[in-house]
């Protein structure tokens, strides 16, 4: 028996090393795939050793559940379109958090039904895993519903929302501490129920453009909940993996917040984007609207082009046509690069995945810092489905809500082609002076149709 425990622990150590080495290999696109396979082997080893060596498991129930879960997970992973990746990650995240919450409930009931006493350590760890798991679950499900457009993507705001959320969180902490001494069912219920409610009321007030931050934060929470589950059942690999995932989510949260020049608190509490009407209907200024034919001429005779994609590209599912346009321009000897803002899209790295799906080689994708100095030497910038990330007010207008946010300096290029559905302001509801510049051409219409039209025009030249 002792030797079996040692075997399981030894395999857990191997698994933990594989997780870290696997993530390390995500440091470069060339080694990333082997990295994720390493991490998957680590997961398989850890789960397998538990399955075979832990005594007394109810194998009938377990095998059935594993089979159902694997089937759903596998079908989902192969069917889901790349454009739906943010909501998929959000939901999977929620499932992980939900599992941690269920483990906490199961452990609580186990101890109670067996008539055993709770020691403070187990009561606190059950409360912790349950609370964070419940928050992760409900928050992620709401994020999923918003991204999948089952719910309105705009912030849902009501009076005293932040205040009541704060009170509920404070009450959770107090009740959680109380659980060490009074682990009664109603205390435990509240410790899980309050964060569950806050997950809902906290995330409904987050607007679409702030989703990358929230998804990253929920990702971190799912790791923390997992570590909590590790404390509950005294399991080392859950603690190690949970801490790693928690750190990962936190780093991404920080990167995203920095890319918006806002604090995490501001993102969570300000309901950015809910006041569209107030700033949206800006002055009636003239824009230069062009036909696909005119735009194609400008593109075809440029020497260098930078493409700035945004969430609109994902909405219009125009990534394949955009890639075709890029390839066509390159065939004419034009240099084509893609500039990716850290918060373009609805999750970290969203645009990179879309363009990778469309076979755009990754060495043509550039980060903000890598490419920003190149705009002034560029003939044409194509802005497709992006808005706030190219708003020059962020650089120059201290009154703008976007002021201070690092942007892609599209306005410094010789000319700018903006593909946009209409003149409606972007998500933030902030007017964009880029559109009114003399060098800016507006090509109105659905992004996909516009790109297809450009491709046809250039082919006919």
């Amino acid at each position: 028996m002792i030797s079996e425990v040692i075997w399981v622990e030894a395999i857990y150590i191997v698994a933990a090393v594989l997780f870290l080495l696997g993530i390390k290999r995500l440091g470069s696109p060339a080694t990333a795939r082997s990295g994720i396979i390493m991490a998957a082997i680590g997961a398989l080893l850890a789960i397998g050793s538990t399955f075979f060596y832990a005594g007394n498991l109810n194998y009938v129930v377990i095998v059935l559940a594993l089979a159902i879960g694997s089937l759903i997970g596998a079908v989902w992973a192969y069917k889901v379109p790349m454009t739906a990746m943010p909501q998929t990650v959000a939901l999977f995240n929620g499932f992980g958090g939900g599992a941690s919450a269920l483990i906490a409930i199961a452990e609580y009931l186990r101890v109670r039904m067996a008539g055993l006493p709770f020691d403070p350590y187990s009561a606190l760890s059950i409360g912790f895993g349950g609370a964070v798991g419940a928050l992760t679950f409900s928050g992620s499900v709401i994020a999923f519903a918003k991204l999948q457009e089952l719910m309105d993507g705009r912030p849902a705001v009501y009076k005293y929302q932040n205040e009541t959320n704060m009170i509920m969180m404070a009450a959770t902490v107090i009740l959680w501490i109380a659980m060490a001494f009074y682990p009664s069912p109603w205390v435990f219920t509240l410790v899980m129920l309050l964060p569950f409610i806050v997950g809902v009321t906290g995330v409904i007030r987050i607007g679409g453009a702030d989703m990358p931050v929230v998804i990253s934060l929920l990702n971190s929470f799912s790791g923390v909940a997992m570590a909590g589950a590790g404390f509950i059942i005294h399991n080392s690999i859950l603690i190690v993996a949970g801490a790693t995932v928690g750190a990962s989510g936190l780093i991404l949260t920080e990167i995203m917040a920095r890319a918006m020049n806002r604090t995490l608190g501001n993102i969570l509490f300000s309901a950015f984007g809910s006041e569209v009407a107030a700033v949206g209907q800006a002055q009636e200024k003239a824009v230069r609207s062009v036909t696909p034919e005119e735009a194609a001429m400008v593109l075809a005779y440029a020497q260098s082009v930078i493409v700035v994609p945004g969430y609109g590209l994902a909405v219009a599912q125009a990534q394949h046509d955009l890639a075709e346009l890029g390839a066509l321009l390159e065939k004419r000897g034009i240099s084509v690069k893609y500039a990716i803002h850290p918060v373009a899209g609805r999750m970290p790295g969203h645009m990179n995945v879309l363009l990778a799906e469309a076979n755009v080689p990754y060495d043509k994708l550039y980060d903000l810092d890598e490419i920003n100095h190149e705009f002034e030497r560029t003939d044409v910038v194509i802005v497709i489905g992006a808005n706030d990330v190219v708003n020059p007010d962020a650089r120059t207008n201290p009154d703008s809500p976007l002021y201070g946010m690092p942007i892609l300096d599209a306005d410094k290029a010789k000319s700018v082609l903006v593909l946009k559905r209409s003149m409606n302001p972007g998500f933030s509801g902030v007017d964009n002076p880029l559109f009114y510049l003399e060098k800016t051409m507006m090509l109105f219409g659905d992004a996909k149709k516009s790109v297809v039209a450009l491709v046809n025009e250039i082919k006919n030249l």
Partner: protein
Amino acid sequence: MGEELVIAIYLLVLAAIAGYEVITKVPPILHTPLMSGTNAISGVVVIGALLVTLSNEPGLVQGLGFLAIILATINVVGGFLVTDRMLGMFKRREGDKR
């Protein structure tokens, strides 16, 4: 109990630091796979779900374990497969396999 808690906290802190070090080196281009990959790792919480689904426990406890295993398995299997699918699309040059 005290000693076990100390060791658990040791693990937590060291793993968080090690994780922080490797993750800060992941470039922005791979942030989505990083997120869905770490998300898949968090599905390893299925181990916890296995360990509460013991045959001598009351049916209610086992039922919760059953649900937890399904959720966590979707997370781990779906997460790794979708990350692999995503990474399979990252290519350096046109026509490159991988």
